[in-house]
């Protein structure tokens, strides 16, 4: 990110950011309205900066938006916003459409990713009949099936109970992809390499989880 700024409706949301994100696991924290979700949306071009520029592996998130979105997968807080088709298999196939794969290869990839997340044989299950945790895993699978190199997650555990949070985090921990995760659950960041703290649109701390979380607690005190 080079001198990135973001305004929405004439109001500053993020102020001048100069950042290079190279670590495998990066956490993003901050109070509600601090700008962390907007920051996440800049990473795959869902939001365009109003100043400066954002690049991912050398690709500009505005000019090369399609290529960037293929590289940067995005998991939303609410899986119901993300799952487009009525059944699990159909929704996973939706992500593969741009690749124009043979039906057999498409089915193979769907089968493998469902097995990976403990949802083997769920191709024909109706999404609205799944539990919240299963739905979030389907949303995650729907993004990972596109084989992105970076995964951005915006508060993915907010709607989950403890068991499903653990299930989802185990799935995220096992990923080889780089991860940027926005969260309010500070416990989830224990093994992360780097944490960014936002406050009123400004990056106020950047470093190891323990140090940044300490700063966050002091900020809220």
């Amino acid at each position: 990110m080079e001198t990135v700024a973001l305004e929405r409706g004439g109001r500053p949301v993020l102020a001048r950011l100069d950042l290079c994100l190279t670590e495998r696991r990066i956490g993003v924290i901050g109070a509600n309205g601090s700008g962390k979700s907007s920051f996440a949306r800049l990473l795959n071009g869902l939001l365009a900066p109003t100043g400066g520029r954002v690049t991912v592996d050398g690709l500009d998130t505005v000019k090369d938006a399609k290529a960037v979105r293929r590289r940067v997968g995005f998991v939303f807080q609410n899986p119901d916003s993300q799952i487009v088709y009525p059944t699990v298999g159909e929704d996973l196939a939706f992500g593969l459409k741009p690749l124009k794969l043979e039906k057999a290869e498409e089915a193979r990839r769907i089968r493998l990713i469902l097995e990976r997340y403990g949802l083997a044989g769920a191709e024909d299950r109706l999404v609205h009949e799944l539990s919240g945790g299963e739905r979030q895993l389907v949303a995650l699978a729907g993004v990972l099936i596109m084989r992105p190199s970076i995964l951005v997650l915006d508060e993915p555990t907010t709607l989950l109970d403890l068991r499903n949070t653990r299930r989802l985090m185990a799935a995220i921990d096992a990923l080889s992809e780089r991860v940027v995760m926005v969260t309010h659950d500070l416990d989830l960041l224990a093994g992360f390499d780097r944490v960014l703290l936002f406050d009123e649109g400004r990056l106020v701390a950047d470093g190891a989880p323990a140090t940044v979380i300490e700063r966050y607690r002091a900020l809220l005190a």
Partner: protein
Amino acid sequence: MIGSLYLPGRSPLHRLPAGLKAAALPVFGTVLFLVERIVPLAAALALVIALHALARVPPRLVLRQLRPAAGILLVLFLSQLWLADLSEATVLVLRFVVLILAAALVTLTTRSADLVAALERALRPLGMLGADPRKFGLAIALTLRFIPVLAVVAEEVREAQRARGRDRSILALAVPLIVRTLKLADEVAEAIDARGG
């Protein structure tokens, strides 16, 4: 038709091409409206029920297809009974029952992705006029996907208003429902963008 959704299976009806089933449905419906006697309509009903059995649709699921329309069918029957006679009332209701069950049979035996793909193929000529058939297909898929989601949202809003003693106020139900639906629509559009759709 929309409420039924897909029932996995390997019956001959499941294996028929989605486009053929979708095209046969309006033809069948048109024929039904040309028939004005009870006996052929009853035969059509028997045929549709037999096809449900062939597709291994459980009887409770067959009845569930009719439940949402039961009130309207009753009103239609009573009004025809009052305006015309028993025979005409029976013909009218039988027609709708057969049509609803036939439509349900199509969705129960066809994956929505296959229906959408068939629709996209059928609409491909519109591409010459600048329309994008994939957008029509996506709209149908989203409709099928979000009916149960919106039903849950509506129930949550109703519950919240009931807790506040406002469950009889249409405004108190409609405003939050509309606001949440619009917010959901924004989020879905964003997610489709993020998934490269």
